[in-house]
């Protein structure tokens, strides 16, 4: 579904993504793991068409990233990205106008589930409430690939369960999810495969079952082992 070969993205002398080669299969949930600055968000933005890579290739269903991939991929950034005048209703209308696979009724249900209101102005929301609204927008699309960048950041414990439950509910039907997070223990039970990224390169990847069985540890303990030497 999504394939990248020797992907590189440099900002001046710093390589945010450094020779990344990955393949994502349809119908699976992937955890993209790594500390801050490891290249997870940069990779997702390249796949979403927001960043042009320095070199290498990235294809979505054998097509270069462009209008076709954007029509079938959802990307939820960590940052708030709405116009200052927008309410959640305005954001929903925007998505409905540009994404044919956007389900307004599902969006309204998710907004309600997350304790938000369609009339609320997004710019006046807390970071946690904005995060919930962004997830609602992303999950309301029936896109083939859904990339969620740190979806659980700033979310309270109860809402995290709601979000993870929603992801499980809307996964399947050959939908692929790529979720980046530091909250490894929360993701461990729901993801099929884990990809560990360090300094813009894949250091470890595989099915969760295989990785944990081989290491004899949980995914969380494996995460600590892999990134033990990373400066925070």
């Amino acid at each position, binding site marked *: 579904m999504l394939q990248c070969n020797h992907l590189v*993205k440099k900002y001046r002398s710093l390589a945010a993504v450094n020779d990344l080669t990955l393949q994502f299969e349809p119908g699976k949930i992937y955890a993209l793991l790594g500390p801050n600055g490891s290249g997870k968000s940069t990779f997702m933005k390249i796949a979403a068409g*927001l*960043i*042009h890579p320095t070199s290498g290739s990235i294809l979505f269903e054998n097509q270069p990233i462009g209008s076709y991939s*954007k029509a079938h991929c959802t990307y939820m*950034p960590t940052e708030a*990205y*709405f116009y200052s005048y927008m309410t959640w209703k305005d954001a929903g209308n925007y998505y409905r*106008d*540009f994404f044919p696979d956007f389900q307004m009724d599902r969006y309204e249900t998710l907004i309600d589930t997350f304790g938000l209101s369609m009339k609320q102005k997004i710019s006046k929301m807390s970071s946690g409430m904005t995060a919930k609204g962004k997830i609602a927008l992303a999950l309301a699309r029936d896109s083939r690939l859904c990339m969620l960048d740190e979806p659980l950041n700033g979310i309270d414990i109860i809402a995290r369960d709601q979000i993870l439950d929603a992801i499980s509910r809307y996964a399947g039907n050959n939908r692929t999810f790529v979720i980046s997070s530091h909250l490894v223990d929360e993701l461990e039970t729901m993801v099929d495969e884990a990809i560990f990224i360090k300094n813009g390169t894949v250091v470890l990847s595989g099915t969760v079952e295989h990785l944990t069985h081989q290491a004899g540890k949980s995914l969380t303990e494996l995460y600590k082992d892999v990134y033990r030497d990373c400066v925070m």
Partner: protein
Amino acid sequence: MLKLSKYEFRKNRNALLLLIAGLIFLQILYLLALNTKDDDYIFSAAGTLFLYALICYFSIFIFAVTNYYREINSRTSYLIFMTPVSPLRIVLSKMLTVLFLGIILAALLGVLGVWDIHLLASNYEEYTGMLDMINELLLEFGIKTDEIFSSILFTLLTFLLSFYSTIAVIYLCITLTATLLQNSRFKVIVSIVFFLLASEGRSKLEELIGNHYVIRYGERFLDLLFQAWPYTLLNLGVLLLSVTATTWLLKKKLSL
């Protein structure tokens, strides 16, 4: 593209409403001034209204440029660039919104201007005879007042086309700073130098055209438009080149 234009307009709605509110306020002041029959009040109000109308009009283009700069350098650009709309349509939607607002506002200010001049003239009936006398005098010299009007309208239109193509060049410069020059320490300076070089290049070309094509004023409006085809072609060329280059940069070099 029209959907994008709708959101472009919505982003600027409050600023536009504020501008129009100011215009309505000054128009009311002008009408009140006419009522007082005091020359000082009338001409102060008329002058202020005229100046404000000019500022109002050019504010549209200033908003367009500043909004684009702010957007491409902020996270709100994700909203547009995550959609499956091609970079060409994104650029054209912005240009179309500016053009549409420019035309609407020009029409509105034009109608308002004609009405205000008519009100002013009717307030000074003693000068109506003098205006007729000036008209007769100009006719003696072979100058028709409708030809003067045509020349003014023609100058206005060619100026607006030139100005609109300058906006397209500014869009290109802004896009350059956000794409190709993104990692450059001197991106703003390079961008400004590029704009100055582009403007200088266009001036030189206009000069070259002027050496071979002289506009004969005093003709009918359509004849004037026909005479100006090299200038029109030049400005359309600048517009097309800028839009093409902006689109290419957004497609190949974008890094938000």
